[in-house]
């Protein structure tokens, strides 16, 4: 049981480390947000699940934290992306801008 929990901890922390590596390697704000948000969210969820396996008595509060992270993290990163765009940071777009009316 606690072996599964430890493995989940390692997997979660590995995703967090990969996301931070993406944060460092990606070329502009929007790509960095993509890397940071997705990896940190899944990494945190995996860590919380792992702790849930190690301490079965704590599941309720872990579920609250997990739900909270799942709800707020994308909202936070969307608001950063929107702010960056309004502040005049141009996304590095290689393809033509598409789908807009004029």
């Amino acid at each position, binding site marked *: 049981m606690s072996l599964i929990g430890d493995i989940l901890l390692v997997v979660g*922390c590995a995703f*967090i480390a990969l*996301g931070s590596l993406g944060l460092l390697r990606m070329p502009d704000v929007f790509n960095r947000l993509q890397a940071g948000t997705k990896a940190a969210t899944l990494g945190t969820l995996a860590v919380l699940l792992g702790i849930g396996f190690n301490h079965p008595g704590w599941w309720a509060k872990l579920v609250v934290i997990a739900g909270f992270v799942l709800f707020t993290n994308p909202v936070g990163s969307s608001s*950063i992306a929107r*702010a960056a765009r*309004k502040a005049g*940071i141009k996304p590095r777009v290689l393809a033509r801008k598409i789908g807009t009316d004029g």
Partner: protein
Amino acid sequence: MTLTTLQLIALALLVTGIALSTLRLLLGPTPADRMVAADTLAVITTAGLAGLASVFDNPVYLDVALVYGTLAFVGTVAFARALEGNRE
């Protein structure tokens, strides 16, 4: 509070993540880049606080993680609004 080998590996990976994000926080050419790094660090810290609860075997740290996550989210949105400014 002895850690198993796997937990030590997880800890090392977590520290790597924090170090890389901090590097982006210091390097970040624009304020938005620094905000992305700060937001990611906040989420990593939430996970780290939950990990502390596990290491110290003390569920109080879970409440700390929950409140920290809430405040970090509010802070992120507030900074995003400040960066956005009044350009309608």
